Every structure is written in C-alpha cells, then in structure tokens.
C-alpha cells in the first residue's frame, strides 16, 4: 500500500473541501450570523493547515493500483465527513459531535436523513452547507479532483478511483481521457443544476430555498430548509422538482449520448427502460391506491404519488405528503422502491436498475438451463454479452448487501423501536434515501437512536454510497502493508 500517495491525495481533497466551505462562510458573514461565520472560519483554517501538511512533499513512488484506489476513496469520504461536521459542532448548532457527523455523512452520501427536530432554527450558513454537501457528494469529490488535478492525468491508474467512487456494476469510459470524462460528467451535472435553479426561480421560490433545494435534488440527497420539506411550495415547483429528481436518477452517460446526438442509442438503453418502467408502474399503482385519501381528486393524487415515487426511487427523500399515513400497499411499494434505487452512473443510491436488470436476466438464463441442462446461454444487456465476472460481481454485491442490511438491522433493533422503524431506518440509510416509515417517517427524524445505532447507521450510509467494497476492504489487514521505496543508485 502506497500510503504517501494516499495521504497526498487526501490532502488535496481537504483543500478542496476548505474551498467549498468559503461560500457557506460568506453567507453566514453577510447574513449577520457571526457564530456560524466563526465556526466556518476555524474549520477552513484547520482544513488548510492539515492539507498543507499532507501535500507538503510530492510522493516519489507513484504506484497506484486498485487497492490504493479503494483505500483513498474510503478514507477520503470518512475524513471529509469528520472535518465537514466541525462547523455544526463549533457553532453549537448541533452540540453532539456524533450527531454532527451523522448529519454531515447523511449530507455527503446524499442520504438526507436528519437528526434535527426543527430545521428552521438553524442558521442560513449551516443550512447552505448541509445542502451543499449533497451536491458535492452526488457526483463525488474524487471525480471532481480527477477533473481538475493535473497530477492525475496521463495514467490510467486513476481509473481505480473513478471505479471506487462511481456507482454501478460496470464503469466504462465515454472518451479516451479520464479527466475529460470527469469534466463532461461535472459539466452535465452543473448544467442540469443551473436549469433547475432557473425553473424554480421562475416559480417564485425564494433564492435561498431554490439553491438549497436544487442542491438536494441534484445530489438526490433530500435535505430541505423547511420542517415541511417540500409540502409548502407551489404545485409548479413541486412538479419541477419531480421532473429533476427523475432526471438526476438517470445514468449520466445517457445525457452524454443525447449531447452527441446518438438519440437511438440513448433511448434504446435497456437500463433506462427498466428505470422508467418501474417508476411509471409505481406511479400508476400508488395514484390509484391513494385516490380515496385525496377525495378522488386525480390531479392532486397524481402529483403527490409521482413526487413521492420519484423522491424515494431516486433515493432523494423529499416529501410533499406524509406517506406514512397512506394505505399499506403504497407504503409497501415505497419500501420496495427504496431498495431498487436509481440508475447506475447517476447520483442516486440503492441497488440500481442496472443490477436488477442483470440479476433478472441471469436468473432467467439459469432457470432455462435447469430445464435444458445442455443449453448454452449468454446474458446480454444492450445487445452485448456480459462477462461472467460482471454477473458474478453483481451476485457478490447482493449477497454482501443483504448481509450488511441484516447485521445492521439486528444491532439497531437493540434500541427497541418497532420492527417497521428499525427495518426502514437501516434500508433508508443503506440506500441513501432519508426518510423511512414509523418513527423515521417523513415527519420524524433519527435523533431517537442510541449512540451505537447512530454509528451503525453512519457506516451504513457510507457503505451504501461507496457501494460496499471500498469500505469493506478498509478492514482487510493485508491491505495495510507499506510499499517499499527503492533507493536510487541500486
């Protein structure tokens, strides 16, 4: 393990985090919130000094492989969360540091689960920072680093970082250069973000709310600035948010294909069809199911249903209605959608439509093989045969996913909440959604859990965002061996 290189990269990431905290500090400063401004200032200074120390010397050995990629990713996210929580703690707005970390991890992993009982008492600067962590975590800060840092150019080994941070079973390249690809992804991300902001401003949403809600949507996070989440905004704004939640749940390579005018290739994409198919069926089912609740007002029911389905399936977690009070079928659909999640290569979490597609395709082939044992089958997606390794990878992922969910569920159950609360709290964190059912429903929060459960849920969020493996390999002792540095003139 090339620790010097790992430390060097993390130093760069902390410097970026400091940079990204500056707007939050400015908002506090100009919004006459001296306590928050001071907290941000102290954090920025701490970040800068730590990063200066870490990047003081360029490492000689540039060896960088899969192992290092995983380690950098896992450590970077943890370190970023620990430092990102400092403003909340120093300003005293979240006096419990563990809770502050929970809030930051929830932000960075674009979960949107909160321990805050009353969001509206928070200072503007803190609310902005909370929402901005969503935007940052959505596409991934390491991908951002790849887009701008010249030292990582020219070698393919940085692809390991991209693979570790980007969600989905297969990470391919759209263009030959990795930093170009990172740039393209961020350009699409920024363009969509700006579009949403403009559309929301046209709907007379206040500027501060617009910015924060857009960050929450873009990263498929879900932190709001009002206690009612999105329920108090106009129907127009709710529809805009619904559409953009759906867009941010789409694989970003589809947008690239559209930009390149490869329309047929984009629209024939199987994952996109599965994603939209599931979403459409869910909207129809929920609308029919909740019609009686809204006195048979079809447009209203449709609006609530589509907002909530999009919010849960893309793992955003905004709410316009308390779906905790909906009929059982709708609640169950929500839980299923929680697990399914958005598309690979999007900012959303969950298992991802691509994996669902591969699982069902391979299950179908295996069943056929049981009937005709001599039959030779190939699993195909988008007309191309999948490698056995990819299929195996999906199976392994599912196995460990279930194991993590089960163990976390058992630990969280120690707190003696209802089965519904415990199960959905774990699923909600592991899939980076935010609200669950019961105590942690859209109107509730996560502050009731014990310290132990909070730690488990924090780990769940990180495991969910980084797709299990980077976090898992952190605990493999064989990875902690140091790389020998050759002396010159040997």
């Amino acid at each position, binding site marked *: 393990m090339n620790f010097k290189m790992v430390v060097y990269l993390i130093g760069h990431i902390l410097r970026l985090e400091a940079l990204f905290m500056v707007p939050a500090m400015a908002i506090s400063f100009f919004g006459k919130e001296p306590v928050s401004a001071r907290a941000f200032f102290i954090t920025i200074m701490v970040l800068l000094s730590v990063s200066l120390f870490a990047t003081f010397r360029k490492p000689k050995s540039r060896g960088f492989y*899969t192992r290092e990629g995983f380690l950098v990713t896992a450590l970077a996210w943890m370190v970023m969360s620990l430092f990102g929580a400092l403003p909340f703690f120093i300003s005293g707005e979240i006096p419990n540091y563990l809770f502050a970390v929970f809030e930051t991890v929830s932000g960075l992993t674009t979960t949107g689960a909160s321990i805050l009982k009353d969001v509206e008492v928070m200072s503007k600067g803190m609310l902005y920072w909370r929402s901005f962590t969503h935007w940052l975590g959505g596409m991934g800060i390491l991908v951002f680093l790849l887009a701008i840092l010249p030292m990582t*150019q*020219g*070698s*393919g*080994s*940085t*692809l*390991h970082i991209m693979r570790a941070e980007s969600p989905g079973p297969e990470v391919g*390249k*759209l*263009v*030959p*250069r*990795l930093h*170009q690809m990172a740039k393209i992804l961020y350009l699409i991300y920024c363009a969509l973000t700006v579009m949403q902001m403009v559309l929301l401003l046209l709907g007379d949403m206040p500027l501060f709310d617009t910015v924060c809600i857009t960050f929450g949507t873009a990263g498929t996070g879900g932190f709001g600035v009002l206690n009612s989440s999105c329920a108090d905004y106009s129907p127009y704004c709710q529809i805009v948010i619904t559409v953009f939640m759906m867009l941010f749940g789409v694989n970003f390579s589809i947008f690239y294909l559209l930009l390149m005018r490869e329309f047929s290739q984009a629209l024939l994409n199987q994952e996109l069809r599965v994603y939209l198919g599931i979403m459409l069926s869910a909207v129809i089912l929920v609308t029919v199911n909740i019609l009686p609740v809204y006195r048979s007002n079809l447009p209203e029911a449709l609006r609530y249903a589509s907002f909530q389905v999009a919010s849960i399936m893309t793992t955003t977690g905004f709410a316009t209605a308390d779906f905790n009070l909906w009929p059982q079928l709708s609640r169950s659909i929500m839980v299923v959608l929680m697990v399914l999640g958005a598309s690979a290569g999007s900012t959303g979490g969950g298992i991802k439509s691509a994996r669902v597609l591969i699982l069902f395709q391979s299950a179908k082939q295996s069943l056929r093989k049981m009937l005709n044992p001599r039959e030779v089958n190939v699993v195909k997606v988008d007309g191309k045969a999948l*490698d056995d390794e990819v299929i195996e990878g999906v199976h392994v992922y599912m196995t460990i996913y279930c194991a993590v969910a089960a163990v976390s569920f058992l630990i969280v159950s120690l707190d003696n909440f209802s089965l519904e609360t415990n199960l959905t709290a774990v699923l909600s964190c592991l899939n980076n959604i935010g609200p669950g059912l019961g105590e942690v429903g859209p109107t509730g929060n996560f502050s009731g859990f014990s310290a132990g459960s909070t730690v488990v849920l924090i780990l769940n969020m990180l495991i969910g965002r980084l797709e299990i493996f980077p976090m898992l390999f952190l605990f493999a002792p064989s990875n902690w061996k140091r790389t020998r540095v050759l002396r*010159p*003139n*040997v």
Partner: protein
Amino acid sequence: MKIVIVGDGKVGFALTQQLSKEGHDVVVIDSNKNVLQESLVTLDVMVVHGNGASLRVQKEAGVESCDLVIAATSADEINLLCCIIARKLGHAHTIARVRNPEYAEQLFFLKEELGLSMMINPERTAANEIFRLLQFPSFLKRDSFAKGKVEIVEIVLKENGVLDGKQLLDLYKIAKVRVLVCAVERGSQVYIPDGNFRLQKDDKIYVTAPTRDLAALIKHMGLYTHRIKDVLIVGGSNIAYYLAADLIASGVAVKIIENKHSRCMELAELLPKASVIEADGCSKSVLLSEGIESTDAVVTLTNIDEENLLVSMYANFLQVPKVVTKINRTEYNEVFRGKGIDCVISPKLLTSNDIVRYVRAMQNTSGGSVITLHRLVDGRVEALEFLATEDTRYLGQTLLQIQLKPNILISCINRGGKIIIPNGETTIELRDTVIVVTTADRPINTLNDIFEEPPVPSMTYDSTNCI
C-alpha cells in the same frame, strides 16, 4: 490528436503507452478482452472490444473523426483491411504493420494502391539495426541522422580506459576528431553534460560523430576490435532471415540454429549461402559443437526472451566479442544492464520510435518538423533531427546568443552535407538540419520548441544605459 490503434499486442501496447503519454487521445481496439482490460487500467485510454476490421467496431471507436489509424495486429491481411476501411470511413492517415517478407517485397506497390501513409515492418527495422551494430562492434547502439552522415553511438567506459576520469573539455585531444558527448548514463541517472563534466568508469556515453570519423574515433579511444567475419544466429525468425540476407550480401559468414524442421527447410531455400542447423539453439552442447567458442558474434533471436537472455549470458561468459540480444519485455532492462546484456534490440520500441516521429511530424503543418527521432537510455533521452525553415527563430545568430531550454543540447548541424559539430560561435542557417538531444520529459515537435520563451529581451541593457 485522436488516434485509433488496432491490435493491443506488444507493438500496439508500446505505441499506446508512448502516444498517450505525449498527450494524444488514444482508442484501442482488440478482440481479446483481457489485454484491453490491462491497457484500460494502466494507461489513460479508451478501449473498444471487437474485430478492428469490422465497420461497426471502427465506427464505435470513432474512426470517422480521428486523425490517425494504426493497424498493428498480428495478421498483415487484417491490418491492410483495417486501413482500407478506415480510409473509406474518414480522412485519417493510416499506418499498417506488414511483416510477411513476401508482402514486404511489394511494399511500395501496395502503399500506393491502398493510400497508406506508412508501412511498418518491425522485423525489417530490427534486422537493419542489428546489421549496423555488427558493422562497428565497439558500439552498443548506433542511431543515424542526416541521411546516415551523422551517428549517435553508445560506448561503455572501461576501468583505466583512456577516458576514465577525463573532463569533456579534453575529449578532442584524445579522440583527435571533432565529436560531442550528448548524454551520459551513470547508474540510474542520466546527464546532459557540459564541458566541465568529468567521466568515470562504467559510464555509458552517447557520442555524436560524423559517420566517416567513426573508425578514427574507435582507434584513438582504444576501442579497436576485429571486424566481424562470422555470426552465429540463434533462432530462425523473420529477423534472422533479413539479417542473414544483409550479412551474406556484405560477405559475412552466417550460421543459423533453428529448432523447427519446416522453418529450417524454408531458410535453407531462401538463404542458400547460409549454413542452417536444425537443433535446439539453447542446448550447451549444440552451441559448443557449432563453434560458439570461435565465432566473432552471437545474435539471439528466438521468440522467447528467457532463452535469448540465457544464451547471451553464456556467450558473454565465453567472451564472444559481440553479443546482441533481442528482448521483447523491455521493462526489465534496468536489471540486465551491467550484467553483460548491454546490446539489446527491441523491435517494438524501434517501430514505436518511427511512428512517434510520424505523429509529431503530422502535428505541425508549418514545416520544420521532425525528420528523424531516436530514443536513447530506454526512452529517457530523445535525439531529434529538424529542418530549419523560414519560421525558425534566431536564424544566423551564434549559439552563445541563443537561450535554450534546460537539458537541451544542439549536438550537430548538417549544412548541405557538411557536418558541423557546433561550438559557441556556430550559427543555425536556413535549410540546415539540426540534431537536438533532450531528456524526454516533454515532447518537442518543432525546432522552435527548444528555445527558451519568451525571447530574451535586450531591454535591460538599454534601460541601464539610459540611466
């Protein structure tokens, strides 16, 4: 530039590595997923899986909009087909690897008919290189410039040799011909030396010299060795065939040891004057009975690196005057160096040099592009030859007046066939070709790239004078 490389084998990978490092956007096509995966994770490139000669795959790789297609698969026919399709699809230049000697004879004809920009034959290039080394066995490496009038040769300094401990300023007194040391390799370090540099034993020095002075250089530096009269070639590959043909034509006796009966028959038919031995060239008793103890040179050309190394080390042990080793896996060269394996030939690197030169020349349309490119010290030093055109800055100024970028040396100037080893008073004139030596950390595309920018202003002197 956007470059598509078809075939991710030895040559393909070496090319991908070099071209990607020089900042080009490279897409690699191959039908083997495993090698593509390797390229994807070690180099910053895009890969496309499939048959490179199929239209669908070429479209997927973006051949329509790319600038250059290089076909380097193992099959000549596929390479040619690739280039024909690429030509039809877009406006890319095309380079094909064609190595079948039967096709090689009709190279020129093919090139015209198919609209190919360039054809490469790594085996032919390697054979040429080995032949030139055998001409002057004192040198480990010879790279020629200015249509063969100038060479950069590699020499290893022996303990207590005439150059041990000498400063470069004194070189002329010893060599008695005008030469210039343009690079020195010491341990793992490479230096572009100046006049005060002091040489040590075991240094490998790279010397620029006019070709006609090479014999004198060898004599005065005490490097004289006998002319090679017979060569033992182990392995009957295509390189062996080309090399043997060249050697026989120049009157050197050739003995080829080859294991496979059918190949022996072929060689015997093609090279009636060579003596072809059907035996295992790695067996000690075979080598001894075929006279390895008395031969002037051993060239190991089997397809297996390990065998080549083993036989070369044995030949060195028997103190054969000249041993040339073909090695494909060049990444381990640092281990072999100084272990008796000094004279190493790698067809893929020779080929990639040629193509890199072509690519750099493609990049600037304004003229003054690279005429020759050679890489020394495992690619850590580059020697390039440029033509000075109207666009070249500082024409007519002496070298003392011109500020060069660090670690760059003008090692030779060819003025209409007259070879000038430059000093401070030398000038660069229009239509000169200039040979530049540089540590290869940044690509140099035109002659103007070697000058320090912006041009050093003489303003400072003027202003002080005014005051």
